[in-house]
């Protein structure tokens, strides 16, 4: 009884107010900013209607951070910044200072400690990434390692603003795509149906749930070797892996046959055209840990082609809208295979219903 009384009851406090964490100049001018400019890559300069100014120095991190790294970032904030930071959606850290004189020493310190300053404006920002082998229960690949190898290759593009418009990247370790939409995404694409351990299905999986989860109704209950299990119509199966999370004995990951696909042209912004989803432009790339050179080669090729050919303010999707898909494949040298023609619901809207052809 005494022990029961000692149990602490959770305080369902929800999302905390951000006032007490915010830099005082931000708090003072909340909702009253006039404009901003970028004195150099990695630095945002915001001016309030009150005349107050702040500089935000943005640096890349590894997202999966050990406490030593976080404390180092805190040391820098206390010694070179003003004790207040924030993180962006792409895991960049921003140091906010109201004193311009602090900007250069802050940049020097961050870079000296190995945190690249950049990720603003028309740069390639840090990859939005997922968990992968480090923590996920269904991953086809790792996330942190893919990101590390990609950002090593794109390091200079992070630190400079030399792209036609901003470039957002993401990577996902299965087709659920937790990494989300991006100008360019790397996503696992399975190529074989699940391998089923029929000894375990009946005890581990709620079979009607698994049947219902399949997008193409390829799964049905079956008796296998006298045991209740599930079977997959392999002619129907699209190898999406949707059955694997609710039924781990239906193993979809395969060291050889789980490949990586590249997608381009997702645009979250409403600027110019409406938001768009990204489109698959390459697949069949090997899951080649620890540095995924084949993936990096395709990513680098697409980004170099875009950089050289797009006009100012064209996001990747805007650029392809102008030049057309045939020239995208021609310029990048990527093979246009039959698998890139959509046949899912709504797919006819993705076909060319005109004689608009660029020669």
């Amino acid at each position, binding site marked *: 009884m005494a022990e029961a009384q000692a*149990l602490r*009851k*959770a*305080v*369902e406090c*929800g999302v*905390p107010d*951000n006032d007490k*964490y*915010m830099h005082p100049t*931000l*708090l003072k001018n909340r909702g009253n*900013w*006039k*404009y*901003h400019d970028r004195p150099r890559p990695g630095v945002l300069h915001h001016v309030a209607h009150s005349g107050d100014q702040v500089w935000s120095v943005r640096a*890349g*991190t*590894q*997202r*999966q951070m*050990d*406490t030593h*790294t*976080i404390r180092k970032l*805190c040391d820098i*904030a206390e010694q070179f910044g003003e004790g*207040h*930071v*924030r993180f962006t*959606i792409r*895991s960049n850290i921003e140091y*906010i200072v109201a004193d311009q004189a602090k900007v250069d020493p802050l940049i020097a310190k961050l870079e000296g400690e190995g*945190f690249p300053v950049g990720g603003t404006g028309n740069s390639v920002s840090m990859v939005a*990434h997922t968990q*992968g082998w*480090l923590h996920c*229960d269904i*991953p086809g690949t790792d996330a942190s390692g893919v990101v*590390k*190898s990609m950002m090593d290759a794109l*390091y200079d593009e992070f630190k400079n603003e030399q792209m036609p418009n901003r470039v957002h990247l993401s990577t996902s370790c299965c*087709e659920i795509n*937790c990494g*989300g939409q991006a100008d360019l995404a790397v996503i696992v694409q399975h190529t074989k149906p699940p391998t089923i351990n029929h000894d375990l299905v009946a005890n581990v999986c709620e079979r009607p749930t698994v049947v219902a*989860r399949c*997008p193409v109704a390829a799964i049905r209950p079956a008796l296998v070797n006298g045991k209740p299990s599930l079977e997959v119509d392999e002619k129907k199966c699209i190898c999406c892996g949707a059955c694997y999370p609710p039924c*781990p004995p239906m193993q979809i990951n395969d*060291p050889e046959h789980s490949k990586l696909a590249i997608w381009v042209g997702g645009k*979250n*912004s*409403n*600027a*110019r*055209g409406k938001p768009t*989803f990204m489109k698959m432009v390459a697949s069949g790339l090997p899951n080649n840990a*620890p540095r995924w050179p084949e993936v990096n080669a395709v990513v680098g090729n697409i980004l170099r082609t875009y950089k050289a050919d797009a006009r*100012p*303010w064209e996001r990747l999707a805007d650029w392809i809208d102008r030049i057309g898909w045939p020239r995208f494949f021609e310029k990048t040298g990527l093979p246009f295979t039959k698998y890139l023609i959509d046949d*899912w619901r709504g797919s006819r809207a993705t076909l060319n219903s005109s004689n608009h052809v660029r020669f």
Partner: protein
Amino acid sequence: MAKPMHPTPNLDQLETGPWPSFVTGLKRLAKDKDYVVDVLGHLERSYQTRKGYWKGGTVGVRGYGGGVIPRFTEIKDEAGQPVFKDAAEFHTLRIMPPPGMHYDTATLRQLCDIWDKYGSGLIALHGQSGDIMMQGCTTENVQKAWDEINEMGFDLGGAGPAVRTSMSCVGAARCEQSCYDEAKAHKAVINSFLDDIHRPALPYKFKFKFSGCGNDCMNAIQRSDMAVIGTWRDNIRTDDDLGRKWFAKHGMNELINDVVSRCPTKALQIKDAGAVRKDAHISAVALDGKQCLEIDNKDCVRCMHCINVMTGALAPGKDKGASILVGGKSHLKIGGLLGTLVVPFIKLDTEEDREKLVELAQSIIDFFAENALEHERTGEMIERIGLVNFLEGIGLDVDPHMINTPRTNPYVRTDGWDEEVAKIEAKKKAAA
């Protein structure tokens, strides 16, 4: 001093190159923690075999049904014992950060102290749903870590078929494009659904995201069941000094190629200063002594492009608020869906305005809870039942802002047409 490291030839290759290395960070932790020595061994095994080895389970904190992501190792020896025994359990606590992800260093240090004491020392800032991910904890320590984090004033986020942790952009805190106080709206909405966050009982996940303008930095339209996107109703504001400054620096070619010709609705024209229209819906910014950039605000869709290019010279209007879209989601099960506009404009200036937003959210979640099939997202439900049934269910009137085009086929029974027209007329009359 921790036990000796396992060989990690694959992971070692991720310590080269200029980008900060998560492997180097883990190795630093492994100097003092047997736990992380085995986490590295576990991860190296995945790199060798290209397979994942964590399985889920049931681990939680008292009083909550979600917010902890349980992970148990599947790398076992012949006797069924974990090969990496110090990393046999590797659970994650999802913690909701302050909106906009602002921190003072004392708070970050306190989180580090708690996680060194009870966890692996690995923290992701932040996960894809916007949580602080306290990664790597034993079952025994989950409650202890949670108690201390909760004492700091933080709460667990969502997991499973629940309202999920939300994200809002930096917005009003620092951005001149902000059209409402994103953090206040974020907090008002999410803190109204704590029961639906902490005790997963919905058909499937439900995500809110808050972006302060059409740039949608939170990817809300693509990724959330209910997206709140800032906009304004009156004219784009202009600043002649900053307009002239922009033009002096960038010139006519950039103005035409990068601004005027990229306007999606052709709302921009270059005019001689004396020829600018005087109508109430026209705004204009000076370029030099002779010419102006004229904006027809009736044609403008508030896409943000010209404001992005000429920030300061152009700015969102003063009559600000937000548009609401519902039904965005990723691939599974029926394919990716973008959100659909269901409320063209809602004011979000006051507590009462935000209360109306919460009421709308509540009616959408109630309808979703009652009508969605198991594992069906809001967008899939709308696809299945049709937008009109959804709108009637949550009590919203149809509006031509909700569509790209009217129906392109005749396959609909329309014998209620006259009644619908009469209803619309009656509403018009009542409003007049």
